[in-house]
Each structure stands twice: as C-alpha cells, then as structure tokens.
C-alpha cells in the first residue's frame, strides 16, 4: 500500500485548527452522533451494533465450556478480539491479522478485562474441571474514523446483554451474564497540531498520533495506549484526560438507556 502523505489535507486541517474548527463543523471535544442497538444477531449470545458517524461496528459474544488453567482452577476466561477485515475499508487487505487489528483488539480487551467488570470466578462451574470461556468478537463493517471507541462500545454493550447458554451446554438454566460496571473508551488524535476527540476518517488520514483512554465507572484509568508517530506533553495529556471523563460518562448513559429499553 503506497501511502502518499495527503499533504493538501494536512494543510487544510492545520488552517482549520488555527480557527479552532473541524472539517465537519464539530467542536474540538465534540463527538459524532452515536446509535447503539443490542440483541441484533441470531446465534450470538449477546450482540451490539454501533453506528458512530460513518463507522459501523458489530460485536458478538459466544460462550464455550473449557477446562480451567491449572494455576487458576476456579476461574473462567475472557477473550476479546477485533477483526479489521477488508469489508471495512478500501485500505484493509486480506491476510493474517495486521498489527493494527491486533492492537485494536488488545486495547479493547485490556479496557474491559482490567476494569474487572467480569468476575472470573463467577464463570466457574466445577472448579478444576469446567469453566465458561467468554469470547467477544468485534467486526468492523465500515471504518469512518475512530473505530477504537466504536469497538469498545460495541464490546461492552454486547457483553452487558449476553445470556449464558447454560441449557444448550446442559449445565443448568440460561441466565444473564453478570457484568459489574461499564468501562468506556475515549480516543483523541492530534489534528492540525492540537488534539480532537472522536476523529473522523479524514482527520485520521491527515492527523498524527492518537491516545486511547479507557475509564471505569469511578473514573479510574484501566487502559492507556498511544499509537502512531508523534509525541505529547504531560500538559496535553492532562487536558484530554479531563475531556475523556466527560465523554465516558455520556456514553455510559447511552449503554444504560439501551439496556433500559
């Protein structure tokens, strides 16, 4: 893939940044409209669809019975993976998982795992013999920018609506998976020299490094990741950290509302 640096786009974005403007008219810390739909896929034990501007992401949860790891006999397991398949954008090519797709999956995974929202011991059926493995698969169908946040949101929403298929596996009655908390990710990209929240596809193309922050219900950090070429100062981080808190609270409400339906 020849990536000609889109010089004109960078210039335009810099010019806009001087006036504190963005290409699509948003404010610096303003996100795009987000719609969230859950329980939308047959065969998935939990599912969610997130539309965030031109970005469309599905997540599906599946369960399997496993033998526990010898050193954690009373714990189940959680796995979260993302596939950046060629369906999502002209720029994605077929083949084994790219570094981008591995990073995406691992950052989303860490945010959920480290928030402790799934109690691994609650996934134990018979200690040392049988535990649940929970697998969240995220499928990006259209990359219109900021897929990290969309994937994080789809993953936790699918997880929060998942039903453990105990009957199908002959280990009791189905029940709703217990999920404590709603970790939410907020992502920022440097565009025209300053950071913006929820970058669009063009802003990513003409921007620089990005920072992903996952916050739990109490506002604690559960995952951080800086991606792409570029550096930032502690002062810059302090500012976006503050914005992240506000945006995460809003999105957490969206998840709660969806569940209330």
């Amino acid at each position, binding site marked *: 893939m020849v990536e000609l640096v889109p010089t004109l786009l960078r210039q335009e974005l810099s010019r806009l940044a001087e006036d504190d403007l963005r290409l699509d008219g948003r404010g610096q810390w303003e996100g795009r409209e987000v719609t969230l739909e859950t329980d939308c896929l047959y*065969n998935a034990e939990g599912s969610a669809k997130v539309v965030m501007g031109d970005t469309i992401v599905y997540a599906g949860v599946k369960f399997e019975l496993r033998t526990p790891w010898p050193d954690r006999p009373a714990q189940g397991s959680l796995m979260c993976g993302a596939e950046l398949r060629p369906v999502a954008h002209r720029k994605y090519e077929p083949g084994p998982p790219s570094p981008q797709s591995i990073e995406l999956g691992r950052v989303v995974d860490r945010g959920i795992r480290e928030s402790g929202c799934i109690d691994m011991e609650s996934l134990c059926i018979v200690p040392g013999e049988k535990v649940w493995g929970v697998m969240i698969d995220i499928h990006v169908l259209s990359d219109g920018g900021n897929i990290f946040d969309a994937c994080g949101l789809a993953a936790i929403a699918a997880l929060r609506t998942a039903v453990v298929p105990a009957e199908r596996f002959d280990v009791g009655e189905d029940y709703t998976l217990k999920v404590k908390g709603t970790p939410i990710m907020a992502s920022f990209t440097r565009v025209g020299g300053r950071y913006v929240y929820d970058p669009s596809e063009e802003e990513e193309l003409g921007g620089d490094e990005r920072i992903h922050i996952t916050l739990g219900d109490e506002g604690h950090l559960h995952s951080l990741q800086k991606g792409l070429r570029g550096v930032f100062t502690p002062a810059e981080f302090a500012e976006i950290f503050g914005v992240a808190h506000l945006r995460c609270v809003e999105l957490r409400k969206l998840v709660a509302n969806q569940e209330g339906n």
Partner: protein
Amino acid sequence: MGGYGDVQLLREDGLRLDGRKLDEMRPMTIEAGVLPAADGSAMVTHGLNVAVAAVYGPMEAHPRKIQRQDRAVIDVRYNMAPFSTSDRIRPGFNRRSREISKVTAEALESVVLCERYPRSKIRVEIEILAAEAGTRCAGLTAAAVALADAGIPMRDLIVGVASGKVEGIVVLDLDKAEDNYGQADLPVGILPNTGEIAFLQMDGDLSPDEYNLAMEYNFKAAAEIHEIMVDALKRRYEGGEN
C-alpha cells in the same frame, strides 16, 4: 447433508414445521448502500440469516500475477463472523469458505462486464453476521445488489436461491432444521432476465425428477427475490427512505 435421525420435518397437514408451504420461501429483506466506507454495499436478511456485501473498485489489480490483460478479475471473500453460528467459528478462512468464495467469484464474473476494466480488480467482501442455512445464496444475492449499487456494469443480476429434499419431498429454501436433517440441497445462481444459471452446487441424493422439481421451485422463487432486489436498488437511487 445429514440425512439421518428421527426428526420429523413435515407436519401432518402437509405444511413444514414453521408453517411454510413446500414451495414457499422464508421472509427476505434487502437494503442497498448500507456501508458508508464502501463503493457499493447491500444487506440481505433471509429468515434469520444476515449477510452483508461490500464492493470496492474497480482498482489496480495487485499482486501483478492476478492481473488479466483483457478484463477485470473479481476477488470475492465469503466470510462467516465468529459469532454467526451456534458454535463459535475461529476467525480466518477455512476450506468451505474458500470454495464458496471461488465459485461465487466465478458466478459474478459471468455477469459483470469485466472486459471494460482490463488489468483491474473488483473486490467483493461478503460477511455473514448470522447464519441459519442458505448463507451462500444470501451472500450471492447481496453481492449482486452491492455490485449494482457500486455502479459496476452488469449484463444481468444474479439471484441466489436453493431448494432441497426432506423426508423424500422436494421443498424450497431449507431452514436450519431442514438443512441439518434433510436429504439434499441444490443452491443455484439464476440470471433473472435470461433464465441462465451462473452458480450451481448440489449435494445429497436427488433423482432426475426430483432435480427437475427442485429447479422449478428455484426459478419460481428467483422471480420473487428479483423483485425485492430491484426494489432495494430503486429505493436507493430514486431518493427514498435510505
């Protein structure tokens, strides 16, 4: 085909378990232009199946060795999402999806005017989000609509449709139970205007007469599906709700 076990698939009143007649298909909806990032796209829901297709191109064909001097190649990837089936599927291609991708690409190359784009490539991505028997047909139909949505010139659409046999009786459009316990499956890709066939697979056990009846059902259903496809494209292009 499974073809074993004691499951009863036809009711005493001659109807099927879900109340369908022998030659009745499951409900189907089609929407074109569902993926903003793609050059063309479509979503097909058919029974509980959900299939999405995206089209990118025509674009330069690379690696070079796949280029054809006199036409475009169509590069299809049929893929089932890990959560699309009862047991999770490990991500990545398997032999089944590679075979389906190959014959789907060949069917689409039969209707796309590939000669207009020498040395280029058209990418068709078929993603199955939920599977309930009949995904290759739903995917083929979605791909045809997505190609049209992308403005790729074609000499006809292709309609994916299947009939099969359960308990010795030919029926249209097997659902999941019928597919698991049925005796034959005949998925085809029909050109609705010319009545030609661009896609053909079959497995199980069919006598020549049964084959003829199954094919008759397929053609009848293809006409119905064709209307839904045209409708989706009209809604997309004549303004409309989308």
